[in-house]
């Protein structure tokens, strides 16, 4: 993994190594990806795009699988909070 890039998560700037996935960025930032139906904070489980726990909104598009998206500089990620 090479030089860090910056994305925003819920408005806050986070630096992550280039090549990191969005799900990794959420975990590094200590943020839950989503809030479950009964109010639990959730993060990635399967790491392979199957469990749908890592869903976040990327550039306004909801229900994106964070573990399948590589971070790009300036990306705007929002999660349930």
């Amino acid at each position, binding site marked *: 993994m090479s030089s860090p890039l910056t994305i925003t998560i819920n408005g806050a700037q986070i630096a992550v190594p280039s090549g990191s996935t969005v799900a*990794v960025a959420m975990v590094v930032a200590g943020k839950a990806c989503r809030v479950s139906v009964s109010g639990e904070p959730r993060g990635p489980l399967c790491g392979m795009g199957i469990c749908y726990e890592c869903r976040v909104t990327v550039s306004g598009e909801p229900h994106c699988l964070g573990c399948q998206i590589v971070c790009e500089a300036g990306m705007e990620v929002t999660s349930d909070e």
Partner: protein
Amino acid sequence: MNKVVRHAFDLLVVGGGPAGMAAAVRAAESDLAVGIVDDSAMLGGQIWRGESGAGSAGLKWIERLRSSRVKVLRGRVFHQPESRILLAENNETVYELQYQNLILATGARERFLPFPGWTLPNVLGAGGLQAMVKGGLPIGGKRVVVAGTGPLLIAAAAYLRQHGAEILIICEQASWVDLAQFGMALLSQPSKILQGLRLKKALAKIKFSPNSWPVAASGSAAVESVTISRSGKLETISCDYLACGFHLVPNVELPLLVGCQVQNGCVQVDDFQRTSVPEVFSAGEPTGIGGVELSLVEGEIAGLAAAGRTAEAGRLLNRREKLRRFARSLDRAFRLRSELRSLPQRETIVCRCEDVRYSHLREHAGWRAAKLQTRCGMGPCQGRICGPATQFLFRWGQESVRPPIFPVRAESMASFTDDSTLEVCETTGGR
């Protein structure tokens, strides 16, 4: 707005892992138009995850594939609208893939079993945490408890350790006896001994505890400690991550969708990897969990058979049989013990998509009744996480699958119609 792209292949391979790559490479040696479609940007499946994750064997196959005439597509197959056509989707495109023959090499996924606290952030699968580290998660200096069952625990622990994680313990639910028998099976496979020795070095001084399983994970915003049962005694361990998975289950959703016969969760195939649907083959984990080498040889056999080179395929049958014996020993050694059925408590969530708790599921007679009454299995994971769990907990059967076999954009579901007012950007014919 979707682009619609049409391709027509002599042979379409679904899945770019070891089995799929081997099949595509061998088939492409004949003068066939071969396409391979995988939902990842990287080739190699879950086990190799692209060039940086593959060992030397993986790199060789990726190289062979890239230098062949196989057309590599990124997309998630979700529907078969008509015989010999599959639809796949990625961020910008929906593919209509026509084929004469089809090889399904859709791999496997981890099995998760519920226990109190398993939904806490930083509780992941064993393969799941490994995948996250491959995706850039810094694990150096982090304390990790690895638990569950199967060779994946050891492979994942070794990988994590190599990247700086502090592996506190590996809890394997199998007994010493089961493992010893598996160890014997390993001895019959020379390459596996080498693998074993390398892993042994990577795992030196890590506590490996059979007869052990997680009883609860605790923490507030994320996991902070795990309570495990070790030969009946409870022990609580502080940790940063819990990597917990109970071996693998085959991905049979696409085989079911196209009508293949599936038994005990495995696609039924003949000697040449042909399924019950004449133009469809299957290779690798969907036919039964058996590891990389079995996947590779099954892929080769399927690719050769699909290309009509049955004599060459026939020469690989012995090697496959030996590897299948190993696969059967895997099954036996890592079968789930009944104590694991008692792990979930009344309030433990079993279906994570819809937050359905154990006590609500228990009262239903079967999967369909439970699903309709509680919504278990109706979420976006489409039962891939809760299905294997409920099959084990309640001995429920499964239902047939309906499209889409993954959530897809509505416009992708709408794209296959009679009236082609849609813009078709590219059509690749056969030879």
